[in-house]
Structures are given as structure tokens and as C-alpha cells.
């Protein structure tokens, strides 16, 4: 359209009849031959390949594709995976032989994470939040050559649906930015269905190729194992106190919005919240995040107006997404991208976990008590920053692993965005939130200073020896806006 500002528009030539278009079918997108597909994809040394984690520990696609890359002798790949799980331990040899050079992820656990902690990557590991990942892909900072989208179902043109097919996973929020921004997009599916495949999570205009495989995953691994309310009386006490915190904050009013993780205590909070809403005839606006059956029940009971779903944690959530029009899909960008208007910015309350927290409320959910990678931000950073009230729920005493430290191993979420910590031995409030301290004292909650709680826990448990690390930095913990929060060190 470079003729828009051309004043001599009549000087532009009109095409000749011989150049007129012909009708005809476009090229077939579907192949079952991975070797042929790879010839077309032009993946070379240093290429950037992306994957999503909606099939979680049941995913077969990431391992399958990367083993093909290895077979072809391609080296120095940057693996951009929204999350990596124990099933990805099959990729450890690919770190050693140089097939995979860098890893960019929002969560990583299992033996692959441990191998990376021991310095097996030739390059670096970059840990992002879900919103930060979407931001860096959407704004072009992280350029992806080929996105391989594990697709529970696709038609022959590439309309992908997460709710159809034998390995349905529900919402596909983490794959949306990849499908829109990658140089090439391959739908990998085991369920080729009639055109048009709907409801569509990723539409055909974004999909270049469809690879038909025997199986994209194992259903039993797709459903998360953490979606049960805790039965532990200490966990239940924490959950009850958390409800009191929410009530005292004054945010539990008509139309409030809510998110919680899928950990046992967080789910218990959701369960107590449901009872509270029924008793007090209280109706919420939306609930968001990874969605569980607990939330879809509340949607169907009319306790929430709608659900914003970036990923389904269980089968009930997948069923609900299929049938309930107010169970809404959201992309990771809509969820938490800090450069655009996002759902987290409308959140009143979020309930989160922590592996460690320091006396400035900085949280680590990335490394465990041995200093090894075993998690990641996921939406932790995004929701803590966006919500009006971010609450960390955790046991103070859990198998002698210290919760409160002078300094956390790796900062995942900055303390300036964390408001409250609820433990079985008291409620700590960030000094930045004097308003909450006042409200909680008026409500006669057991508010304690986080430094005092740390000293008390050290009296009982003893002071832990610091985790031994080498001086070698193997990666960084990135904040959602792309700034560097902390280094990740190699473990001895």
C-alpha cells in the first residue's frame, strides 16, 4: 500500500489478465511423517523452539520433538517451555550432548531441574512468570522460530480445541502468545477431527503444519496431583485464619474477585470461602487462574459470576469449560502481561504458597531446601503484583524445613508486592501495609512481627546451615517486566 500517499496514482500499473488468480485448494497441512515435516521447518543450530505445558506431567510432545532434533544432530537449541515436569527427565542427555543450550521456563521440577541445578546446561536458564513469558513473546523480545503446540484435537486446517479429543486439557492459555508470534506453528495432535473443530482455542490462520502422532500424552498425567483440600488440622487452621484475614480486610463484599493456587491449604481456603459465601448470602464477581472443580462448583451454585481460566487443573474444570458459557478462557497475556490491561490487575484477593519467605517478605517458590530448582513463579509474581491483597499461606513448621529466613535462596516474587503471611503460629503483615495492620488489630487477629516469628521458629528448629552453592551463576530469576530479580547459582 505504498501508493496511499502517491499523488500520481494513475502512473501505477494495473495487473495483466495473465496474472489473474486461479481458484484452488491450498497446500495440505497434515503429515504423519516427522522427518518430512522437519525438512520443511528448517530448524538449525541455535533455533528457538517453544512448547506449552497444558498436558503437564502427561506430555509426550516436548520429548518427542526434541529427540527428533537430537536425531538430526542439531545443536544449541533454546528451549522455551512454559513449564517442565518430571516426565522431561528424558531430556537430560540432550543437555549433555549440547542439543539443548538454553532453557526459558516459568516452572521446572524433577530430575531435569536437578541436572540444570548441577550445571548441566551449556547456556543459561531464564525463569519467568506466566505473564512475563507472554509479555516477552508478545512484544518480540523473545523470538520463537517454531512453536510446537500439543493439541488435544485439531481439524485438517489447524483449528485447535483443548476440550475435544481423548487427551483433552481444557483451556490452552499458555500457548496463545506462541501461536500468534512464532515464525512457524506446528499443531501436534493425536485426534484429527472434522472441520470446523470448535470451540477453538487456536484458530487455523495461526497454524502452518499439523503433525499427526499416535499419542500426545497420558491422560492420567494431565490432571494435576495437587488438587485436594488438605486434611491436615494445621493446614485447616491456617485456612480458617486466612478467611478471617480476608474478612477483616473488608474486601469480601458483593462482586469481589478471587484467585487461589491448587495447593492443599489454598484449596481449603476456597472451601471455607464457599461456606462463608453461602452463610452470608455473598456473591462474587470472577475467580481466576488455574481452575479446579471447587471453583466450577461455586460457579454453578451462582457464587461467582464468571471464571477466567488460563489452565484447567482437573476433569471437572474441563467439563465446565465445555458447558458453562460464563467459564471463560483467557490467554497468559490477558492473565498477567504487565504491558497491557490484564485480569490480575482486577483481582481483589489472591492466595499463594511459598517455599521460603524472608523478613522483607521476598518469596522463593523456585528452589527447595537443597537449593535445587523445583518450581517457579507461574502466576505468583503476576497475581501478587496485580491484586489488592496477596496472602501467602504456609506452615511455619513443616519437616524442619525453615520457612522464614534472613535471605531466601532465590527471589521469585519481590516482597514489595506481598501483603500478608498466614502461618499456624500467627499472621504477619508487610509493614508497607499499615492499613491492613490497623484493620487486623481492630479485628483482634493474631498479628505478629515476621522477625519475631523467625526467631521463634529458630528457637524450636535450630538455625539451619546455609545451602551450599558454587560461585557459578547458571541463570536468572526474571521479574514479569523483564528486569532481573536475582541470580540462580549452581548447586554443589
Amino acid at each position, binding site marked *: 500500500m505504498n501508493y496511499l500517499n502517491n499523488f500520481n496514482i494513475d502512473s501505477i500499473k494495473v495487473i495483466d489478465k495473465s496474472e489473474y488468480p486461479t481458484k484452488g485448494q491450498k497446500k495440505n497441512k497434515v503429515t504423519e511423517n516427522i522427518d518430512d515435516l522437519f525438512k520443511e521447518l528448517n530448524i538449525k543450530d541455535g533455533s528457538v523452539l517453544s512448547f506449552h505445558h497444558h498436558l503437564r506431567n502427561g506430555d509426550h510432545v516436548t520429548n518427542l520433538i526434541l529427540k527428533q532434533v537430537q536425531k538430526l544432530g542439531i545443536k544449541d537449541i533454546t528451549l522455551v517451555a512454559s513449564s517442565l515436569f518430571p516426565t522431561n527427565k528424558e531430556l537430560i542427555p540432550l543437555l549433555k550432548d549440547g542439543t539443548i543450550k538454553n532453557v526459558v521456563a516459568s516452572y521446572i521440577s524433577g530430575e531435569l531441574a536437578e541436572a540444570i541445578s548441577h550445571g548441566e546446561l551449556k547456556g543459561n536458564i531464564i525463569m519467568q512468570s506466566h505473564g512475563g513469558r507472554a509479555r516477552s513473546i508478545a512484544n518480540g523480545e523473545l523470538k520463537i522460530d517454531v512453536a510446537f503446540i500439543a493439541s488435544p484435537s485439531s481439524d485438517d486446517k489447524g483449528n485447535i480445541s483443548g476440550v475435544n479429543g481423548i487427551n483433552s486439557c481444557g483451556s490452552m492459555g499458555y500457548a496463545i502468545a506462541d501461536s500468534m508470534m512464532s515464525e512457524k506453528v506446528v499443531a501436534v495432535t493425536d485426534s484429527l477431527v472434522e472441520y470446523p473443530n470448535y470451540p477453538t482455542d487456536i484458530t487455523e490462520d495461526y497454524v502452518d503444519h499439523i503433525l499427526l502422532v499416535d499419542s500426545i500424552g497420558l491422560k492420567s498425567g494431565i490432571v494435576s496431583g495437587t488438587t485436594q483440600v488438605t486434611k491436615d488440622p494445621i493446614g485447616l487452621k491456617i485456612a480458617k485464619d486466612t478467611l478471617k484475614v480476608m474478612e477483616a480486610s473488608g474486601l469480601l463484599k458483593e462482586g469481589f474477585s478471587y484467585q487461589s493456587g491448587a495447593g492443599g491449604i489454598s484449596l481449603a481456603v476456597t472451601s471455607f470461602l464457599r461456606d462463608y459465601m453461602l452463610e452470608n448470602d455473598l456473591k462474587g464477581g470472577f475467580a481466576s487462574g488455574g481452575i479446579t472443580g471447587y471453583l466450577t462448583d461455586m460457579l454453578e451454585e451462582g457464587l461467582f459470576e464468571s471464571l477466567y481460566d488460563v489452565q484447567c487443573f482437573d476433569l471437572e474444570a474441563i467439563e465446565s469449560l465445555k458447558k458453562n458459557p460464563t467459564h471463560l478462557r483467557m490467554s497468559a497475556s490477558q492473565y498477567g502481561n504487565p504491558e497491557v490491561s490484564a485480569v490480575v490487575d482486577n483481582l481483589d484477593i489472591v492466595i499463594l504458597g511459598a517455599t521460603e519467605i524472608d523478613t522483607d517478605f521476598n518469596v522463593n517458590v523456585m528452589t527447595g*531446601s*537443597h537449593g535445587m530448582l523445583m518450581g517457579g513463579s507461574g502466576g505468583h509474581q503476576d497475581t501478587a503484583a496485580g491484586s489488592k491483597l496477596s496472602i501467602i499461606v504456609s506452615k511455619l*513448621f*513443616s*519437616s*524442619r*524445613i*525453615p520457612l522464614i529466613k534472613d535471605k531466601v535462596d532465590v527471589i521469585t516474587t519481590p516482597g514489595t508486592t506481598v501483603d500478608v503471611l498466614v502461618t499456624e503460629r500467627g499472621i504477619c503483615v508487610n509493614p508497607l501495609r499499615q492499613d491492613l495492620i490497623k484493620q487486623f488489630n481492630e479485628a483482634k487477629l493474631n498479628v505478629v512481627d515476621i522477625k519475631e516469628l523467625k526467631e521463634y521458629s529458630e528457637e*524450636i*528448629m*535450630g538455625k*539451619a*546451615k546455609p*545451602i*551450599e552453592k558454587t560461585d557459578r551463576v547458571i541463570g536468572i530469576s526474571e521479574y514479569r517486566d523483564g528486569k532481573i530479580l536475582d541470580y540462580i547459582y549452581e548447586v554443589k
Partner: protein
Amino acid sequence: MAVINKMAKAGSVESNDILVMMSPGDGGIDLEIESIVYNQYGDDIKKTILDTLKEENITDVKVIINDKGALDFTIRARVKACIRRGSVQDV
């Protein structure tokens, strides 16, 4: 002075607990510790066990520990229970 004269165990391998196993020694204290928090608290755990054995006047025993993050009072209680069970004379 109590003497460990038979195999005994106390505790469990549940979270926050510790399994203590004892058997007659070879003339001294032989202590093997496995713990999920060995890096952070290995020395503390060892000291608690040796102190408790000393308090109970045990000088000749083989002790095998499988710790799942027990706190000091749990460790002491399990060690003492194990001593009672291992030092009971058959009647």
C-alpha cells in the same frame, strides 16, 4: 547403666517424625544418620542423639536413623523409647 541387648525400633518415616533403630554394639557408639534435612541440621541431629544416649548412660550400641525432619523433642522421645524397648530383660 542400661545395656542394649536386643534389636529395637521407635518412631516412623512419616513427615516430621524419625525412625530410630538400635541393636547391641561392638564396644562403642556406632551412629548412622539419614535425614531429609542433613545438610541443614545434620550436626544438630547427631548432637541431640549422642546427648540423649549419654543421659541414658548408653555407651555400647549401633544406631541407625531415618529422619523425616523431626524436631529435637521428637528425636529425644524416639531415642529414649528405643532404649527402653532395646534394654528390656526377657522375663
